[in-house]
């Protein structure tokens, strides 16, 4: 997206373009809206239907945590603090919104890092599979700050369902470059 584009408005346009019907969306902060939209697109073919809720995990990374909302909340707190903004002043809330929408009850973690550390992400999620914590995991990079939005989500499954890419650092990098390159 071009820098002069209003990303918050862009998220609303995407929501209306896909004709989603989820009133709670309007109340979400920008990071949650971005994650919710990206997950809707990622899971549009009911990829998760074969798993129990506790078998599905979420592991995300971003750089700016919930700073986009933190700043807005800080501004309201100079007068009358907004309770609706306050509840989004944690970056992991986006995973809560995704979990509610898709019935996910497995482990979820959000790392804050300067960049998308592909090697770390691959090893961390691989370990979740090897230790039996999850059977499927929504993963990726999700960043919203200073009118800049980046989302590169992918679904990883412990058992190959066919036609899937191998879960390698190289393929994760391809997905990231394809969406944010």
């Amino acid at each position, binding site marked *: 997206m071009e820098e002069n584009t209003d990303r918050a408005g862009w998220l609303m346009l995407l929501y209306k373009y896909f004709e989603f019907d989820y009133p709670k969306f309007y109340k979400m902060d920008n990071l949650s809206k971005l994650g919710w939209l990206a997950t809707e697109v990622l899971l549009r073919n009911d990829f998760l239907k074969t798993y129990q809720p506790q078998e599905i995990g979420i592991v995300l990374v971003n750089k700016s945590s919930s700073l986009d909302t933190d700043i807005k909340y800080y501004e309201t707190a100079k007068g*009358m603090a*907004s309770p*609706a903004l306050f509840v989004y002043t944690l970056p992991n809330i986006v995973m809560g919104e995704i979990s509610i929408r898709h019935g996910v009850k497995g482990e979820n973690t959000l790392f804050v890092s300067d960049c998308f550390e592909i090697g770390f992400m691959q090893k961390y999620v691989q370990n979740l599979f090897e230790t039996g914590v999850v059977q499927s995991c929504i993963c990726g990079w999700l960043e919203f700050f200073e009118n800049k939005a980046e989302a590169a989500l992918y679904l990883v499954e412990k058992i190959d369902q066919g036609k899937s890419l191998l879960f390698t650092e190289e393929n994760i990098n391809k997905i990231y470059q394809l969406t944010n390159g």
Partner: protein
Amino acid sequence: MADLKQQIIAQLNLQHITPEQIGNDQPLFVEGLGLDSIDALELIVLLQQQYNIKLNNAEDGPKVFSSVRSMAEYITANKHA
């Protein structure tokens, strides 16, 4: 009450509905508009910001915020001259 409905929509980000879709006596919570506990806090903020009214007794909340009409009546009864 039309203004109050507009203020509620703006305060709670209810962009999917119009003031005309909110009935004067329609329950605001659960089976009505489906508002939640965070929305209740935002309605308290609305009363303070727009009408300078503080809800001093939390136990009054369910009655005051049961509908747009009950909110309007509370505002009328407590509005400063």
